[in-house]
């Protein structure tokens, strides 16, 4: 147990030192700064945002936007990835389109998404989905191509129906890698959702941090920044744990 405490103390030493230095700097040299605020004031602003409900609303919007976008991308990406992984013909037909579309920076799609969907949830979901569908598609396709050929022969030898082959061989075989893809996509989804809000969408955490900046509230801005970092850390950590859990579960050793 003391070792665990020591480990955490070591990991936290640097961030705490930075916060302390910022506190001292903001209270001595950079008093009245429009850019920097002492972390203690950021904490007060944070509590204020918690109590007036704006924190929950903004966080909920961003997470919902990122989550729904990810859901759409996961369904589409896995379905297309399996198709392209199984069919050489489909892969050859679509490879150029995939290569061209996936290099479009997702941020460049914001103007188009705004024209189609206007402001709001749909627009954010569409941009997040566009940004995350490619890594999921490509990792799924690769995973399907790398399924142990012997397993596919077993499926043939047993004369499994196409549906059973998919459900009992292909999907379980690629599942650990699907969760790797999902973890990568989770990180992208959150970044893109916040970006969409900073650039265009008047909702969510990205918008909140922009408003704090524009209304010259460095304490609130710092509070949002730290909160976004914390939410990002928690979401990514959860995705990583899920990935490890699935890898253990499907990798044979219980």
């Amino acid at each position, binding site marked *: 147990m003391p070792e665990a405490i020591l480990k955490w103390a070591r990991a936290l030493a640097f961030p705490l030192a930075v916060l302390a230095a910022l506190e001292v700097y903001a209270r001595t040299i950079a008093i009245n700064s429009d850019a920097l605020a002492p972390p203690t004031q950021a904490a007060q602003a944070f509590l204020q945002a918690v109590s007036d409900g704006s924190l929950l609303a903004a966080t909920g919007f961003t997470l919902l936007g990122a989550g729904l976008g990810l859901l759409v991308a996961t369904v589409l990406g896995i379905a297309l990835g399996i198709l392209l992984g199984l069919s050489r013909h489909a892969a050859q037909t679509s490879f150029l389109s995939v290569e061209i579309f996936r290099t479009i920076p997702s941020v460049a799609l914001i103007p188009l998404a705004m024209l189609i969907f206007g402001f709001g949830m749909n627009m954010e979901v569409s941009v997040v989905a566009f940004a995350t569908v490619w890594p999921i598609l490509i990792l799924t396709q690769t995973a399907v191509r790398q399924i*142990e050929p012997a397993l596919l022969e*077993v499926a043939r030898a047993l004369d499994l129906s196409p549906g*059973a082959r998919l459900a*009992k061989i292909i999907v379980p075989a690629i599942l650990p890698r699907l969760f790797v893809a999902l973890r990568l996509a989770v990180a992208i989804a959150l970044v893109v959702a916040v970006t969409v809000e900073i650039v265009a969408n008047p909702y969510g955490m990205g918008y909140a941090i922009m408003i704090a900046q524009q209304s010259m509230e460095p304490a609130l801005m710092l509070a949002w920044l730290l909160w976004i970092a914390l939410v990002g850390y928690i979401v990514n950590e959860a995705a990583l744990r899920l990935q490890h859990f699935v890898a253990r579960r499907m990798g044979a050793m219980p």
Partner: protein
Amino acid sequence: MSILSFENVAIELGGRQILSPTSFTVNKGEFISIIGPSGCGKTTLLRAAAGFVTPSGGAVRRRGEVVAGPSREMAFVFQDYGRALLPWRTVEGNISLALEAASVPAGQRPERIRRVLETVNLAAHARKFPAQLSGGMQQRVQIARCLAQEPEILMMDEPFGALDAMTRESLQDGLLKLVRNSDLTVLFVTHDLEEAIYLGDRVIALRANPTPAQPSLAAMIDVSIPHPRDQLSTKEHPDFLRLRRELYQFLGHH
């Protein structure tokens, strides 16, 4: 009674003739060993019999019907047991796959799984995952899965090639006992002369790089050594030694 017939079966892969036109028939309940040096096409011949490979000339017929693809009447034991088992399913789950493929009602599966596991002496390991078993046990799981589909022909591609000598002998004896107690027909590919003679009712020897003057089918020899066979006395039997010498000369070396 003939159950499987090869009628001038020839196989080309990538423009190279692997197997020159080869004809022979297999009788019900017979144990055929197929032997030959690396690259002689013995595995390809077996895969053609199982319907994995379409011959470039001639045809394989099972009960008079041309074999056009894999069928549940023919079970295939792959050499690489480690890859042919689903790592995410337990031993009983792996065997269940064959029953699911054959649409055996869920209620009947546990009893049938128990029966085949007893046949291969793995009843105590039903809940384990393949990675928790030794190589010999994993291969027995694969054999059990093949038995569960209740085939009339068992095709085995060097099934014991990767196992140590002790395990190999014990699996040979287990297989012989199992086959003698059933009316299974077996096609057994091996590169081990002694194994071929010890197990087979008939040994088919193939040669590599066939020419019209020297076709793939180098020799076909009946093994009349009586059953039950025994690792010591059978291998000291005069017929065994004579066949061993005869085949050794056919193959040059093994």
